[in-house]
């Protein structure tokens, strides 16, 4: 089967095109570095079946962070038949540098000038025919978010994948070409063939000082390594600079020349979007807006959620009462049916009302392009805990779910930053824990108590961050983060994105939530819950919580929402305020907020960080949860 790879700089719209071809499967957002892992899918293109691969964005062919490295490796040895080079047309001059490098790979290529609407707004008009002629490869314009032009571009990619035309490459200045030519001669029947790479590309990569290929060359033969160094030196001497800088400057010049030839820059349309940053990224107002946006976000989610929670829960409460009248309330069937109803009540009545508005809100923030701005604003504070602004992005994603948050740490540049950010992001209350915060504390004690919990959470994370930086001291590399232009979110994309998560929730979480409730109900019937509660007694006792809550904490490890659904079950009432004091609710919720990440998160942590570090995270979070909850108990006792 033909395999087509979507390659381009971060945030150029690769995943949007992928989704247009195969249905909404890849997450998209207005943030460079959204895709951190490749995704393959079959698609029908022009009546023929093909495999399309969505890759993480790359600025150049030199791998840097882990996500980029994966894209590059796939590109170089993924047996690709054609490349669809997705370019952000509003950033054409910069993007052409990657396009030039891609043509050097000698793989059939089609260029897709995406975001034509954005380019137009900036006043940039591109002559696609001329660009196609100059590059010697097909070029198409597109607006992927509206599905315009995508079909033509991929169908053409299919054609070139079959026809395999020779791909012309751009030539550098004579002195550089001479050195490249010398090295190509050395490589043609040796290393290049061995690793299946175009000799010209390999030569340029070696002169570029690419660590991966330099290692390959050294392993291949010492002479080759020496010859490379010799040629690098001679090139450097001619121009009085390093070979790498010379090549980069050459590519830049080529790209600029091309750009000037094919594009005309007119008057940009200045709108609200261009003025927005003077407020949202302002040195003082920016922080005010940040706090206001976050606060408004939580209040809206809470209000919408609790508005729906009440009637739905009443409905389920009534059906359990009715059930007791229909069948004897001490038999096996009663407990089984009751468990299922309670599970469904929890999943539909408590989790759903908060989950959906939360996901919709986050999707809008992501698509507008606020996340990189938040990274910029928070950079200063992140430096205080030994990280930089990019780490804010996994943290914010962590409010949605810890799994993508841990995955997103792949965009960070150092191993140490990855570990610290991943560990801290598991303590950010995900939407499941938000359900508990809102559904318990918010619902029974009021929204401001719930908000207080978030503030405490941030403080604890900051303190732990500080401790971790002390334990693993190292100079923090500086922030380099592209700030994409604001985009108007499309309702269709936001809905598709929310649905992707909601569907996953229905398929993966519902069985667990309903099954969990059923199991607990049957345990109650057999009176086994007592033993489970006893096993967790040291924790519940030291926190001053009722014995019955032990089992909810055990099941919470599977799915955090279970802790809340089971709480109602274990206490035998949805009127929690009659059995738990305010202090107990706060203590319980704080413990749940921090203790052991859920199994899905533990699995992804183990994959991304290794078993040792995962064990460390589990141990540390449990300790932190105990300490924080104990403090809360103490403070509650003092107030009371």
């Amino acid at each position, binding site marked *: 089967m033909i395999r087509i790879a979507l390659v381009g700089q971060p945030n150029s719209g690769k995943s949007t095109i992928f989704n247009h071809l195969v249905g909404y499967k890849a997450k998209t957002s207005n943030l460079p570095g959204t895709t951190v892992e490749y995704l393959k899918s079959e698609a029908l293109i022009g009546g023929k079946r093909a495999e399309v691969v969505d890759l993480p964005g790359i600025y150049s062919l030199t791998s840097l962070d882990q996500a980029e490295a994966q894209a590059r490796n796939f590109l170089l040895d993924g047996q690709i038949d054609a490349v669809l080079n997705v370019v952000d047309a509003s950033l054409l001059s910069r993007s052409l540098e990657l396009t030039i490098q891609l043509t050097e790979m000698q793989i059939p290529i089609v260029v897709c000038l995406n975001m034509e609407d954005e380019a137009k707004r900036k006043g940039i008009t591109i002559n696609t025919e001329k660009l196609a002629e100059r590059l010697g490869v097909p070029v198409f314009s597109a607006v992927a978010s509206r599905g315009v032009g995508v079909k033509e571009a991929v169908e053409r990619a299919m054609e070139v994948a079959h026809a395999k035309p020779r791909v012309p490459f751009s030539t550098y200045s004579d002195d550089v070409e001479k050195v490249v030519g010398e090295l190509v001669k050395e490589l043609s029947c040796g290393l290049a063939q061995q690793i299946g790479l175009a000799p010209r590309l390999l030569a340029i990569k070696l002169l570029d000082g690419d660590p991966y290929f330099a290692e390959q060359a050294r392993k291949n033969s010492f002479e080759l390594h020496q010859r490379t160094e010799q040629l690098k030196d001679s090139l450097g001497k001619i121009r009085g600079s390093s070979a790498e800088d010379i090549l980069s400057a050459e590519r830049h010049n080529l790209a600029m020349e091309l750009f000037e030839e094919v594009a005309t820059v007119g008057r940009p349309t200045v709108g609200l979007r261009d003025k927005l940053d003077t407020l949202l990224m302002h040195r003082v107002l920016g922080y005010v807006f940040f706090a206001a946006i976050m606060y408004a976000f939580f209040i809206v989610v809470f209000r919408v959620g609790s508005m729906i929670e009440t009637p739905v829960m009443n409905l389920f409460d009534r059906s359990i009462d009715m059930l007791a009248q229909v069948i004897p309330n001490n038999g096996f069937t009663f407990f089984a049916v009751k468990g299922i109803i309670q599970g469904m009540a929890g999943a539909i009545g408590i989790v759903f009302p908060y989950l959906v508005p939360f996901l919709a809100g986050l999707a809008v923030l992501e698509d507008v392009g606020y996340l990189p701005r938040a*990274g910029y604003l928070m*950079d200063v504070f992140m430096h205080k805990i030994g990280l930089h602004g990019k780490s804010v992005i996994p943290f914010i994603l962590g409010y949605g779910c810890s799994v993508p948050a841990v995955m997103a740490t792949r965009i960070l540049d150092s191993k140490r930053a990855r570990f610290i950010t991943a560990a801290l992001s598991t303590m950010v209350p995900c939407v499941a824990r938000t359900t508990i915060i809102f559904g318990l504390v918010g619902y029974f004690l009021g929204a401001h108590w719930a908000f207080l919990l978030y503030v405490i959470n941030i403080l604890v994370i900051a303190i732990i961050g500080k401790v971790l930086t002390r334990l693993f001291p190292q100079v923090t590399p*500086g922030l380099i983060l592209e700030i994409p232009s604001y985009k108007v979110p499309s309702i269709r994309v936001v809905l598709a994105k929310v649905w992707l998560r909601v569907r996953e929730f229905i398929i993966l979480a519902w069985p667990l939530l309903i099954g969990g409730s059923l199991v607990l109900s049957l345990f109650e019937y057999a009176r086994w819950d007592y033993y489970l509660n006893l096993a967790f007694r040291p924790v519940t006792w030291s926190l001053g919580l009722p014995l019955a809550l032990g089992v909810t904490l055990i099941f919470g490890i599977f799915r955090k929402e279970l802790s809340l659904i089971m709480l109602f079950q274990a206490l035998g009432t949805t009127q929690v305020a009659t059995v738990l004091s305010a202090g107990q609710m706060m203590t319980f919720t704080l413990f749940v907020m921090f203790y052991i990440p859920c199994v899905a998160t533990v699995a992804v942590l183990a994959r991304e960080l290794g078993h040792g570090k995962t064990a460390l995270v589990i141990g540390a979070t449990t300790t932190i949860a105990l300490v924080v909850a104990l403090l809360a108990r103490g403070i509650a006792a003092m107030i009371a």
Partner: protein
Amino acid sequence: MTLDQLQLGKRARVIGVHGGRGLRRNLTQMGVHPGDIVYLTQGGAFYGPVVIEVNGSKIALGRGVARKVLIDPL
């Protein structure tokens, strides 16, 4: 002069990057090359990062990074 000293709203030409290979490569591939004109759109509070516009894109640079970019104000 270095980029962190540039005044808000002022333009400058990049002369070079005073840093390791990784940093130079990082900046060039995002479109900051010697000879390019940059425009400082935001200077963060609390000695935080700066935002520059270069070749049509916006890039946030931490203070430490900005301090390594040599410029010639225009």
